Protein backbone atom coordinates (compact mmCIF):
# COMPACT_ATOMS: atom_id res chain seq x y z
CA UNK A 1 0.00 0.00 0.00
CA UNK A 2 1.48 3.33 -1.05
CA UNK A 3 -0.21 5.85 1.18
CA UNK A 4 1.58 8.87 -0.20
CA UNK A 5 -0.33 9.51 -3.39
CA UNK A 6 -3.77 9.05 -1.96
CA UNK A 7 -6.33 11.82 -2.01
CA UNK A 8 -9.43 11.80 0.17
CA UNK A 9 -11.42 10.37 -2.71
CA UNK A 10 -9.01 7.52 -3.35
CA UNK A 11 -8.82 6.67 0.38
CA UNK A 12 -12.57 6.44 0.41
CA UNK A 13 -12.70 4.25 -2.70
CA UNK A 14 -10.06 1.91 -1.30
CA UNK A 15 -12.00 1.51 1.92
CA UNK A 16 -15.33 0.94 0.26
CA UNK A 17 -13.85 -1.59 -2.18
CA UNK A 18 -12.20 -3.27 0.80
CA UNK A 19 -8.71 -2.93 -0.69
CA UNK A 20 -7.62 -2.18 2.86
CA UNK A 21 -9.26 -1.62 6.21
CA UNK A 22 -9.22 1.63 8.14
CA UNK A 23 -7.11 -0.01 10.83
CA UNK A 24 -4.57 -1.29 8.28
CA UNK A 25 -4.41 2.18 6.79
CA UNK A 26 -3.78 3.94 10.08
CA UNK A 27 -1.16 1.34 11.08
CA UNK A 28 0.63 1.92 7.78
CA UNK A 29 0.60 5.66 8.41
CA UNK A 30 2.14 5.21 11.84
CA UNK A 31 4.76 2.86 10.40
CA UNK A 32 5.75 5.41 7.75
CA UNK A 33 5.66 8.34 10.19
CA UNK A 34 7.94 6.50 12.61
CA UNK A 35 10.30 5.63 9.80
CA UNK A 36 10.43 8.97 8.02
CA UNK A 37 9.42 11.82 10.28
CA UNK A 38 12.82 11.98 11.97
CA UNK A 39 13.97 13.70 8.76
CA UNK A 40 11.28 16.37 8.88
CA UNK A 41 10.13 16.81 12.46
CA UNK A 42 6.56 17.45 11.38
CA UNK A 43 4.90 15.68 14.31
CA UNK A 44 5.22 16.54 17.98
CA UNK A 45 3.23 13.57 19.26
CA UNK A 46 1.00 10.85 17.89
CA UNK A 47 -2.53 10.09 19.08
CA UNK A 48 -2.39 6.35 18.48
CA UNK A 49 -5.14 5.23 20.84
CA UNK A 50 -7.62 7.75 19.51
CA UNK A 51 -6.63 6.89 15.92
CA UNK A 52 -7.01 3.12 16.33
CA UNK A 53 -10.33 3.47 18.15
CA UNK A 54 -11.67 5.74 15.40
CA UNK A 55 -10.40 3.40 12.66
CA UNK A 56 -11.91 0.33 14.34
CA UNK A 57 -15.23 2.09 14.53
CA UNK A 58 -15.12 2.83 10.80
CA UNK A 59 -14.24 -0.80 9.99
CA UNK A 60 -17.09 -1.94 12.16
CA UNK A 61 -19.51 0.26 10.27
CA UNK A 62 -18.24 -1.04 6.93
CA UNK A 63 -18.60 -4.63 8.17
CA UNK A 64 -22.19 -3.86 9.20
CA UNK A 65 -22.88 -2.77 5.64
CA UNK A 66 -23.35 0.89 6.53
CA UNK A 67 -22.69 3.60 3.99
CA UNK A 68 -19.71 5.58 5.13
CA UNK A 69 -19.09 9.23 4.33
CA UNK A 70 -16.22 10.72 2.32
CA UNK A 71 -14.08 11.37 5.39
CA UNK A 72 -14.62 8.09 7.24
CA UNK A 73 -11.26 6.45 7.93
CA UNK A 74 -9.26 9.32 6.46
CA UNK A 75 -6.16 10.00 8.58
CA UNK A 76 -5.35 13.61 9.44
CA UNK A 77 -2.93 15.66 11.51
CA UNK A 78 -3.76 18.56 13.80
CA UNK A 79 -1.78 21.71 14.50
CA UNK A 80 -0.76 21.84 18.16
CA UNK A 81 -3.13 24.75 18.92
CA UNK A 82 -6.46 22.93 18.39
CA UNK A 83 -7.68 20.89 21.34
CA UNK A 84 -8.77 17.26 21.34
CA UNK A 85 -10.26 15.64 24.39
CA UNK A 86 -7.84 13.55 26.42
CA UNK A 87 -4.74 14.61 24.47
CA UNK A 88 -1.82 16.82 25.42
CA UNK A 89 -2.04 20.03 23.39
CA UNK A 90 0.76 22.46 24.07
CA UNK A 91 0.51 25.29 21.55
CA UNK A 92 4.17 24.60 20.78
CA UNK A 93 4.86 26.22 24.17
CA UNK A 94 6.56 25.12 27.36
CA UNK A 95 3.90 26.86 29.42
CA UNK A 96 1.38 24.23 28.26
CA UNK A 97 3.79 21.29 28.06
CA UNK A 98 1.59 19.17 30.33
CA UNK A 99 -1.82 20.54 29.45
CA UNK A 100 -4.32 17.80 28.64
CA UNK A 101 -7.51 19.01 26.97
CA UNK A 102 -10.87 18.17 28.49
CA UNK A 103 -12.97 18.79 25.37
CA UNK A 104 -12.93 18.63 21.58
CA UNK A 105 -12.64 21.77 19.48
CA UNK A 106 -15.71 22.13 17.25
CA UNK A 107 -13.68 21.34 14.12
CA UNK A 108 -12.34 18.18 15.77
CA UNK A 109 -15.83 17.16 16.90
CA UNK A 110 -17.15 17.66 13.34
CA UNK A 111 -14.31 15.70 11.73
CA UNK A 112 -14.63 12.89 14.28
CA UNK A 113 -18.36 12.79 13.61
CA UNK A 114 -17.52 12.36 9.93
CA UNK A 115 -15.27 9.42 10.85
CA UNK A 116 -11.89 11.04 10.14
CA UNK A 117 -8.97 9.54 12.06
CA UNK A 118 -6.63 11.84 14.06
CA UNK A 119 -3.01 10.72 13.72
CA UNK A 120 -1.35 13.25 15.97
CA UNK A 121 -0.24 16.79 16.63
CA UNK A 122 2.00 18.76 14.32
CA UNK A 123 4.69 21.25 15.22
CA UNK A 124 4.10 24.99 14.95
CA UNK A 125 5.53 28.30 16.04
CA UNK A 126 4.72 28.88 19.70
CA UNK A 127 1.05 29.90 19.96
CA UNK A 128 1.12 30.24 16.16
CA UNK A 129 3.50 33.22 16.27
CA UNK A 130 5.96 32.96 13.45
CA UNK A 131 6.50 32.34 9.75
CA UNK A 132 9.02 29.48 9.81
CA UNK A 133 8.07 27.14 12.70
CA UNK A 134 11.47 28.00 14.20
CA UNK A 135 9.65 29.52 17.19
CA UNK A 136 8.41 26.15 18.40
CA UNK A 137 9.78 25.47 21.85
CA UNK A 138 10.12 21.77 20.99
CA UNK A 139 11.84 21.15 17.68
CA UNK A 140 12.64 22.40 14.21
CA UNK A 141 10.51 21.29 11.30
CA UNK A 142 12.19 20.98 7.92
CA UNK A 143 10.81 21.58 4.48
CA UNK A 144 10.40 18.14 2.86
CA UNK A 145 11.53 19.63 -0.48
CA UNK A 146 14.85 20.78 1.00
CA UNK A 147 15.62 19.92 4.61
CA UNK A 148 18.00 22.87 4.95
CA UNK A 149 15.03 25.18 4.51
CA UNK A 150 12.05 26.13 6.65
CA UNK A 151 8.57 24.74 5.95
CA UNK A 152 7.08 28.19 6.57
CA UNK A 153 4.83 28.88 9.48
CA UNK A 154 3.22 28.97 11.74
CA UNK A 155 1.42 25.80 10.57
CA UNK A 156 4.74 24.41 9.29
CA UNK A 157 4.31 20.95 10.80
CA UNK A 158 0.90 20.56 9.18
CA UNK A 159 2.14 21.64 5.75
CA UNK A 160 5.26 19.46 6.01
CA UNK A 161 3.24 16.40 7.11
CA UNK A 162 0.90 16.67 4.10
CA UNK A 163 3.74 17.46 1.72
CA UNK A 164 5.75 14.42 2.87
CA UNK A 165 2.65 12.20 2.68
CA UNK A 166 2.56 11.64 6.44
CA UNK A 167 -1.13 12.63 6.67
CA UNK A 168 -3.97 12.70 4.16
CA UNK A 169 -4.70 16.24 5.27
CA UNK A 170 -3.95 18.48 8.22
CA UNK A 171 -5.59 21.30 10.11
CA UNK A 172 -3.87 24.63 10.49
CA UNK A 173 -4.77 28.06 11.78
CA UNK A 174 -4.20 31.31 9.93
CA UNK A 175 -3.99 34.74 11.56
CA UNK A 176 -1.81 36.58 9.05
CA UNK A 177 -0.94 33.79 6.60
CA UNK A 178 -0.10 30.83 8.82
CA UNK A 179 -1.88 28.28 6.62
CA UNK A 180 -1.31 29.81 3.20
CA UNK A 181 2.39 30.64 3.52
CA UNK A 182 3.56 27.19 4.76
CA UNK A 183 1.29 25.53 2.18
CA UNK A 184 3.05 27.62 -0.48
CA UNK A 185 6.50 26.75 0.87
CA UNK A 186 5.71 23.02 1.05
CA UNK A 187 3.91 22.69 -2.29
CA UNK A 188 0.46 21.84 -0.89
CA UNK A 189 -2.93 23.54 -0.84
CA UNK A 190 -3.89 25.80 2.09
CA UNK A 191 -7.27 27.46 2.58
CA UNK A 192 -7.96 30.31 4.96
CA UNK A 193 -11.74 30.61 5.08
CA UNK A 194 -13.69 33.85 5.42
CA UNK A 195 -13.64 35.22 8.97
CA UNK A 196 -16.70 33.59 10.52
CA UNK A 197 -16.68 30.64 8.12
CA UNK A 198 -15.33 28.06 10.58
CA UNK A 199 -15.76 27.95 14.36
CA UNK A 200 -12.67 28.66 16.46
CA UNK A 201 -14.06 27.04 19.59
CA UNK A 202 -11.16 25.01 20.92
CA UNK A 203 -8.49 26.95 19.02
CA UNK A 204 -5.96 28.60 21.33
CA UNK A 205 -6.71 32.25 20.67
CA UNK A 206 -3.88 34.36 19.28
CA UNK A 207 -5.50 37.44 17.68
CA UNK A 208 -9.23 36.92 17.83
CA UNK A 209 -10.23 39.45 15.20
CA UNK A 210 -8.07 37.56 12.67
CA UNK A 211 -7.81 33.87 13.64
CA UNK A 212 -9.36 31.24 11.37
CA UNK A 213 -8.97 27.45 11.16
CA UNK A 214 -8.52 25.87 7.75
CA UNK A 215 -7.26 22.80 5.93
CA UNK A 216 -3.89 21.94 4.44
CA UNK A 217 -4.35 19.34 1.71
CA UNK A 218 -2.82 17.69 -1.34
CA UNK A 219 -5.50 18.94 -3.69
CA UNK A 220 -8.00 21.79 -3.93
CA UNK A 221 -10.79 19.24 -4.12
CA UNK A 222 -9.70 17.84 -0.74
CA UNK A 223 -9.56 21.33 0.76
CA UNK A 224 -13.18 21.83 -0.28
CA UNK A 225 -14.28 18.53 1.28
CA UNK A 226 -12.64 19.41 4.61
CA UNK A 227 -13.92 22.96 4.56
CA UNK A 228 -17.47 21.79 3.96
CA UNK A 229 -17.23 19.31 6.84
CA UNK A 230 -16.02 22.00 9.27
CA UNK A 231 -17.89 25.15 8.18
CA UNK A 232 -21.03 26.68 9.59
CA UNK A 233 -22.56 28.21 12.66
CA UNK A 234 -21.43 27.05 16.05
CA UNK A 235 -23.09 28.27 19.23
CA UNK A 236 -19.68 28.32 20.91
CA UNK A 237 -18.15 30.89 18.56
CA UNK A 238 -20.31 34.00 18.25
CA UNK A 239 -18.40 35.13 15.14
CA UNK A 240 -19.29 31.96 13.22
CA UNK A 241 -21.91 32.56 10.59
CA UNK A 242 -25.03 30.61 9.67
CA UNK A 243 -24.76 29.78 6.01
CA UNK A 244 -25.78 27.11 3.56
CA UNK A 245 -22.56 25.48 2.37
CA UNK A 246 -24.26 22.56 0.59
CA UNK A 247 -23.22 23.85 -2.86
CA UNK A 248 -19.68 24.91 -2.03
CA UNK A 249 -18.19 21.93 -3.89
CA UNK A 250 -20.26 22.41 -7.02
CA UNK A 251 -18.43 23.61 -10.10
CA UNK A 252 -20.14 25.57 -12.83
CA UNK A 253 -17.33 25.42 -15.38
CA UNK A 254 -18.85 27.89 -17.81
CA UNK A 255 -19.28 30.44 -15.05
CA UNK A 256 -15.81 29.86 -13.61
CA UNK A 257 -14.13 30.23 -16.99
CA UNK A 258 -15.92 33.53 -17.45
CA UNK A 259 -14.58 35.03 -14.24
CA UNK A 260 -12.17 37.95 -14.17
CA UNK A 261 -9.16 37.86 -11.86
CA UNK A 262 -7.64 41.09 -10.65
CA UNK A 263 -3.86 41.37 -10.57
CA UNK A 264 -2.99 43.94 -7.90
CA UNK A 265 0.13 45.79 -9.02
CA UNK A 266 1.25 46.24 -5.39
CA UNK A 267 1.75 42.47 -5.13
CA UNK A 268 4.11 42.31 -8.08
CA UNK A 269 6.62 44.98 -7.10
CA UNK A 270 10.36 44.91 -6.67
CA UNK A 271 10.50 42.72 -3.58
CA UNK A 272 9.56 39.53 -5.44
CA UNK A 273 12.20 36.93 -6.19
CA UNK A 274 12.66 36.10 -9.87
CA UNK A 275 11.73 32.44 -9.43
CA UNK A 276 8.44 33.41 -7.80
CA UNK A 277 7.65 35.83 -10.61
CA UNK A 278 8.36 33.21 -13.28
CA UNK A 279 6.15 30.61 -11.63
CA UNK A 280 3.34 33.13 -11.19
CA UNK A 281 3.53 33.98 -14.90
CA UNK A 282 3.29 30.30 -15.72
CA UNK A 283 0.17 29.91 -13.52
CA UNK A 284 -1.39 32.98 -15.07
CA UNK A 285 -0.85 31.68 -18.62
CA UNK A 286 -2.45 28.38 -17.65
CA UNK A 287 -5.49 30.12 -16.25
CA UNK A 288 -5.72 32.35 -19.31
CA UNK A 289 -5.82 29.26 -21.51
CA UNK A 290 -8.93 28.20 -19.61
CA UNK A 291 -10.56 31.46 -20.64
CA UNK A 292 -10.19 33.23 -17.30
CA UNK A 293 -9.61 36.94 -17.85
CA UNK A 294 -7.01 39.01 -16.02
CA UNK A 295 -7.18 42.69 -15.24
CA UNK A 296 -4.64 44.97 -13.57
CA UNK A 297 -6.02 46.53 -10.40
CA UNK A 298 -4.68 48.52 -7.48
CA UNK A 299 -4.93 48.01 -3.73
CA UNK A 300 -3.16 51.22 -2.71
CA UNK A 301 -2.91 50.52 1.03
CA UNK A 302 -1.22 47.12 0.64
CA UNK A 303 2.12 48.51 1.70
CA UNK A 304 0.68 49.39 5.13
CA UNK A 305 -0.56 45.87 5.84
CA UNK A 306 2.42 44.55 7.78
CA UNK A 307 2.67 47.69 9.93
CA UNK A 308 -1.05 47.65 10.66
CA UNK A 309 -0.94 43.96 11.51
CA UNK A 310 2.04 44.34 13.85
CA UNK A 311 0.01 46.68 16.02
CA UNK A 312 -3.39 45.01 15.99
CA UNK A 313 -2.14 41.44 16.35
CA UNK A 314 0.24 41.98 19.34
CA UNK A 315 -2.44 44.07 21.07
CA UNK A 316 -4.81 41.11 20.88
CA UNK A 317 -2.00 38.69 21.75
CA UNK A 318 -1.17 40.56 24.94
CA UNK A 319 -4.80 40.27 26.06
CA UNK A 320 -5.38 36.67 24.92
CA UNK A 321 -2.21 35.31 26.49
CA UNK A 322 -2.94 36.84 29.88
CA UNK A 323 -4.78 33.59 30.67
CA UNK A 324 -1.52 31.64 30.74
CA UNK A 325 -0.58 32.45 34.28
CA UNK A 326 1.14 29.16 35.00
CA UNK A 327 -1.58 28.19 37.43
CA UNK A 328 -4.68 27.15 35.55
CA UNK A 329 -3.37 24.92 32.78
CA UNK A 330 -0.09 23.47 33.87
CA UNK A 331 2.76 24.32 36.17
CA UNK A 332 5.76 22.94 34.41
CA UNK A 333 8.69 24.63 36.10
CA UNK A 334 8.26 25.49 39.74
CA UNK A 335 6.16 23.80 42.33
CA UNK A 336 4.41 26.09 44.72
CA UNK A 337 5.96 25.57 48.10
CA UNK A 338 3.88 28.23 49.79
CA UNK A 339 6.91 30.41 50.31
CA UNK A 340 6.77 32.21 47.00
CA UNK A 341 4.26 34.98 46.44
CA UNK A 342 1.64 34.65 43.72
CA UNK A 343 3.23 37.61 41.97
CA UNK A 344 6.59 35.88 41.82
CA UNK A 345 4.96 32.79 40.40
CA UNK A 346 3.34 34.77 37.57
CA UNK A 347 6.61 36.45 36.66
CA UNK A 348 8.58 33.27 36.72
CA UNK A 349 6.05 31.06 34.94
CA UNK A 350 5.45 33.57 32.16
CA UNK A 351 9.10 34.52 31.92
CA UNK A 352 10.28 30.92 31.59
CA UNK A 353 7.20 29.39 29.99
CA UNK A 354 7.01 31.75 27.00
CA UNK A 355 9.65 31.85 24.29
CA UNK A 356 11.33 34.93 22.86
CA UNK A 357 8.88 35.79 20.12
CA UNK A 358 5.86 35.39 22.37
CA UNK A 359 7.39 37.62 25.03
CA UNK A 360 8.31 40.18 22.36
CA UNK A 361 4.74 40.31 21.06
CA UNK A 362 3.18 40.51 24.53
CA UNK A 363 5.44 43.45 25.41
CA UNK A 364 4.75 45.15 22.08
CA UNK A 365 1.00 44.66 22.56
CA UNK A 366 1.18 45.95 26.11
CA UNK A 367 2.95 49.03 24.80
CA UNK A 368 0.56 49.89 21.96
CA UNK A 369 -2.44 49.54 24.28
CA UNK A 370 -0.94 51.55 27.10
CA UNK A 371 -2.20 54.90 28.22
CA UNK A 372 -0.83 57.72 26.13
CA UNK A 373 -0.01 55.55 23.11
CA UNK A 374 -3.37 53.93 22.41
CA UNK A 375 -4.63 56.55 19.96
CA UNK A 376 -1.33 57.00 18.18
CA UNK A 377 -0.85 53.28 17.57
CA UNK A 378 -3.84 51.03 18.13
CA UNK A 379 -6.68 53.38 17.14
CA UNK A 380 -4.74 54.55 14.09
CA UNK A 381 -4.02 50.95 13.05
CA UNK A 382 -7.74 50.13 13.27
CA UNK A 383 -8.47 53.01 10.91
CA UNK A 384 -5.80 51.89 8.48
CA UNK A 385 -7.28 48.40 8.70
CA UNK A 386 -10.56 49.90 7.46
CA UNK A 387 -8.73 51.51 4.53
CA UNK A 388 -7.14 48.17 3.62
CA UNK A 389 -10.55 46.45 3.76
CA UNK A 390 -12.03 49.20 1.57
CA UNK A 391 -9.36 48.63 -1.07
CA UNK A 392 -10.68 45.11 -1.48
CA UNK A 393 -14.31 46.24 -1.49
CA UNK A 394 -13.53 48.64 -4.30
CA UNK A 395 -11.83 46.10 -6.57
CA UNK A 396 -14.58 43.56 -5.98
CA UNK A 397 -17.69 45.67 -5.90
CA UNK A 398 -17.11 48.91 -7.77
CA UNK A 399 -16.73 48.97 -11.57
CA UNK A 400 -14.32 51.89 -11.25
CA UNK A 401 -12.12 49.87 -8.90
CA UNK A 402 -12.02 46.94 -11.32
CA UNK A 403 -15.18 44.99 -10.52
CA UNK A 404 -13.22 41.73 -10.53
CA UNK A 405 -14.44 38.40 -9.15
CA UNK A 406 -11.28 37.38 -7.34
CA UNK A 407 -7.62 38.38 -7.07
CA UNK A 408 -4.50 36.57 -8.24
CA UNK A 409 -1.30 37.16 -6.23
CA UNK A 410 1.85 35.43 -5.01
CA UNK A 411 1.57 33.75 -1.59
CA UNK A 412 5.02 34.83 -0.48
CA UNK A 413 7.58 37.16 -2.07
CA UNK A 414 10.33 34.56 -1.72
CA UNK A 415 11.11 30.88 -2.06
CA UNK A 416 11.34 28.93 1.22
CA UNK A 417 14.28 30.46 3.08
CA UNK A 418 17.12 28.72 4.89
CA UNK A 419 16.72 27.61 8.49
CA UNK A 420 18.22 30.33 10.67
CA UNK A 421 18.30 32.92 7.86
CA UNK A 422 15.74 35.25 9.44
CA UNK A 423 15.63 33.88 12.96
CA UNK A 424 17.36 36.87 14.57
CA UNK A 425 15.63 39.60 12.64
CA UNK A 426 11.96 39.78 13.58
CA UNK A 427 11.13 42.51 11.09
CA UNK A 428 12.50 40.53 8.12
CA UNK A 429 10.47 37.55 9.32
CA UNK A 430 7.32 39.67 9.54
CA UNK A 431 7.75 40.91 5.98
CA UNK A 432 7.54 37.30 4.76
CA UNK A 433 3.77 37.60 5.33
CA UNK A 434 3.24 40.83 3.39
CA UNK A 435 0.97 39.17 0.78
CA UNK A 436 -1.20 37.18 3.15
CA UNK A 437 -1.74 39.76 5.90
CA UNK A 438 -4.06 42.19 4.03
CA UNK A 439 -6.56 39.40 3.27
CA UNK A 440 -6.65 38.52 6.97
CA UNK A 441 -7.11 42.13 8.04
CA UNK A 442 -10.07 42.39 5.67
CA UNK A 443 -11.56 39.06 6.83
CA UNK A 444 -11.55 37.62 3.30
CA UNK A 445 -11.00 34.02 2.18
CA UNK A 446 -7.71 33.13 0.50
CA UNK A 447 -6.31 29.95 -0.93
CA UNK A 448 -2.73 29.00 -1.65
CA UNK A 449 -2.31 26.64 -4.61
CA UNK A 450 0.98 25.11 -5.80
CA UNK A 451 1.87 26.31 -9.29
CA UNK A 452 3.03 22.82 -10.29
CA UNK A 453 3.10 19.35 -8.86
CA UNK A 454 6.35 19.47 -6.93
CA UNK A 455 7.50 15.98 -5.95
CA UNK A 456 9.47 15.58 -2.75
CA UNK A 457 12.96 14.52 -3.77
CA UNK A 458 12.92 16.31 -7.14
CA UNK A 459 14.97 19.17 -5.71
CA UNK A 460 12.53 21.78 -6.98
CA UNK A 461 11.43 24.42 -4.50
CA UNK A 462 7.67 24.98 -4.52
CA UNK A 463 5.96 28.26 -5.36
CA UNK A 464 2.31 28.91 -4.68
CA UNK A 465 -0.16 31.40 -6.05
CA UNK A 466 -2.93 32.90 -3.98
CA UNK A 467 -6.53 33.52 -4.95
CA UNK A 468 -8.53 35.94 -2.82
CA UNK A 469 -12.32 36.33 -3.04
CA UNK A 470 -15.05 38.44 -1.47
CA UNK A 471 -16.45 37.17 1.84
CA UNK A 472 -18.03 33.72 1.65
CA UNK A 473 -17.07 33.17 -1.99
CA UNK A 474 -15.06 30.05 -1.13
CA UNK A 475 -16.96 28.28 -3.88
CA UNK A 476 -15.21 30.41 -6.52
CA UNK A 477 -11.76 29.88 -4.97
CA UNK A 478 -12.28 26.14 -4.83
CA UNK A 479 -13.81 25.97 -8.30
CA UNK A 480 -11.02 27.95 -9.96
CA UNK A 481 -8.44 25.98 -8.01
CA UNK A 482 -9.90 22.68 -9.15
CA UNK A 483 -10.02 23.78 -12.78
CA UNK A 484 -6.36 24.68 -12.44
CA UNK A 485 -5.30 21.45 -10.81
CA UNK A 486 -7.25 19.34 -13.29
CA UNK A 487 -5.26 21.09 -15.98
CA UNK A 488 -2.05 20.30 -14.15
CA UNK A 489 -3.39 16.84 -13.18
CA UNK A 490 -1.44 17.23 -10.03
CA UNK A 491 -2.08 13.82 -8.48
Amino acid at each position, binding site marked *: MNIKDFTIKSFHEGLVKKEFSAVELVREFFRVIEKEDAKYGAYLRLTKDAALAAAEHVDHRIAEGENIGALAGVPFAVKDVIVMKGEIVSGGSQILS*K*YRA*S*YDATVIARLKEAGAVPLGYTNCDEFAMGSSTENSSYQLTKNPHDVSRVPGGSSGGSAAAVSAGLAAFALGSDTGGSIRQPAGFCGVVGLKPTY*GGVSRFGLMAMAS*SLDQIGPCTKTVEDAGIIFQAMAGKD*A*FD*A*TSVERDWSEVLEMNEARLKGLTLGVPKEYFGEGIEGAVRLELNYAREKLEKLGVKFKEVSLP*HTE*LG*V*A*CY*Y*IIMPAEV*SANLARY*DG*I*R*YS*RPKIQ*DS*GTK*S*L*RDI*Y*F*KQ*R*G*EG*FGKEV*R*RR*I*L*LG*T*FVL*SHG*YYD*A*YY*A*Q*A*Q*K*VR*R*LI*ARDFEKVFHSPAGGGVDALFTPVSPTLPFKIGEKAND*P*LQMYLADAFTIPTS*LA*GLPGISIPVRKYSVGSGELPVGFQLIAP*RFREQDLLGLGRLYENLESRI
Partner: protein
Amino acid sequence: MDLEKKDIEHLAELARIDISESEEEKILHDLKGILGYVEKLREVNTEGVTPMAGGTIHVNDYRADDVEVSVSTPAEELRAAFPERQEDYLRVPYVFE
Protein backbone atom coordinates in the same frame (compact mmCIF):
# COMPACT_ATOMS: atom_id res chain seq x y z
CA MET B 1 9.09 57.27 20.05
CA ASP B 2 12.31 56.90 21.96
CA LEU B 3 11.92 53.73 23.89
CA GLU B 4 14.37 53.22 26.74
CA LYS B 5 15.42 50.33 28.87
CA LYS B 6 13.27 51.49 31.76
CA ASP B 7 10.22 51.37 29.46
CA ILE B 8 10.95 47.71 28.74
CA GLU B 9 11.18 47.06 32.46
CA HIS B 10 7.85 48.81 32.97
CA LEU B 11 6.15 46.83 30.18
CA ALA B 12 7.54 43.58 31.57
CA GLU B 13 6.17 44.58 34.95
CA LEU B 14 2.71 45.27 33.47
CA ALA B 15 2.73 42.01 31.51
CA ARG B 16 4.05 39.99 34.48
CA ILE B 17 7.00 38.59 32.60
CA ASP B 18 10.44 38.05 34.05
CA ILE B 19 13.14 39.13 31.63
CA SER B 20 16.84 39.04 32.27
CA GLU B 21 19.03 42.11 32.12
CA SER B 22 20.87 40.81 29.06
CA GLU B 23 17.60 40.16 27.26
CA GLU B 24 16.33 43.68 27.92
CA GLU B 25 18.87 45.07 25.45
CA LYS B 26 17.80 42.69 22.71
CA ILE B 27 14.10 43.35 23.29
CA LEU B 28 14.71 47.10 23.32
CA HIS B 29 16.55 46.81 20.02
CA ASP B 30 13.78 44.68 18.45
CA LEU B 31 10.90 46.83 19.67
CA LYS B 32 12.63 49.98 18.46
CA GLY B 33 13.00 48.38 15.04
CA ILE B 34 9.36 47.35 14.90
CA LEU B 35 8.04 50.69 16.21
CA GLY B 36 10.26 52.49 13.73
CA TYR B 37 8.75 50.42 10.95
CA VAL B 38 5.13 51.06 12.01
CA GLU B 39 5.73 54.83 12.19
CA LYS B 40 4.53 55.02 8.59
CA LEU B 41 0.97 54.46 9.80
CA ARG B 42 1.00 57.84 11.49
CA GLU B 43 1.48 59.59 8.17
CA VAL B 44 -1.71 58.13 6.74
CA ASN B 45 -4.64 60.51 6.59
CA THR B 46 -7.44 58.72 8.43
CA GLU B 47 -9.69 61.66 9.07
CA GLY B 48 -13.31 60.54 9.12
CA VAL B 49 -12.40 56.85 8.84
CA THR B 50 -14.31 54.58 11.22
CA PRO B 51 -11.96 52.21 13.04
CA MET B 52 -12.37 48.56 12.05
CA ALA B 53 -12.62 46.99 15.46
CA GLY B 54 -12.93 43.33 14.50
CA GLY B 55 -12.98 40.82 11.70
CA THR B 56 -16.70 40.26 11.51
CA ILE B 57 -19.18 42.32 9.54
CA HIS B 58 -22.03 41.16 11.74
CA VAL B 59 -23.22 43.73 14.19
CA ASN B 60 -24.98 41.78 16.87
CA ASP B 61 -25.61 38.10 17.19
CA TYR B 62 -28.82 37.69 19.14
CA ARG B 63 -30.28 34.44 20.31
CA ALA B 64 -32.99 33.42 22.74
CA ASP B 65 -31.77 33.27 26.30
CA ASP B 66 -32.14 29.50 26.50
CA VAL B 67 -29.62 26.76 26.96
CA GLU B 68 -29.57 25.10 23.54
CA VAL B 69 -26.34 23.23 23.66
CA SER B 70 -23.83 22.61 26.34
CA VAL B 71 -20.46 21.04 26.66
CA SER B 72 -20.96 18.51 29.37
CA THR B 73 -17.67 17.58 30.87
CA PRO B 74 -17.92 15.58 34.09
CA ALA B 75 -16.62 17.59 37.02
CA GLU B 76 -14.06 14.95 37.79
CA GLU B 77 -12.47 15.31 34.35
CA LEU B 78 -12.17 19.04 34.85
CA ARG B 79 -10.62 18.59 38.26
CA ALA B 80 -8.22 16.05 36.80
CA ALA B 81 -7.17 18.58 34.16
CA PHE B 82 -6.12 21.07 36.83
CA PRO B 83 -2.43 20.96 37.71
CA GLU B 84 -2.82 20.56 41.44
CA ARG B 85 -5.59 19.38 43.72
CA GLN B 86 -6.43 18.28 47.20
CA GLU B 87 -9.27 15.77 47.30
CA ASP B 88 -12.09 17.46 45.38
CA TYR B 89 -10.61 20.92 45.64
CA LEU B 90 -8.35 22.73 43.22
CA ARG B 91 -5.13 23.77 44.83
CA VAL B 92 -3.71 27.20 43.99
CA PRO B 93 -0.79 29.17 45.39
CA TYR B 94 -1.35 31.44 48.37
CA VAL B 95 -2.96 34.69 47.33
CA PHE B 96 -2.15 36.55 50.56
CA GLU B 97 1.34 36.77 51.92
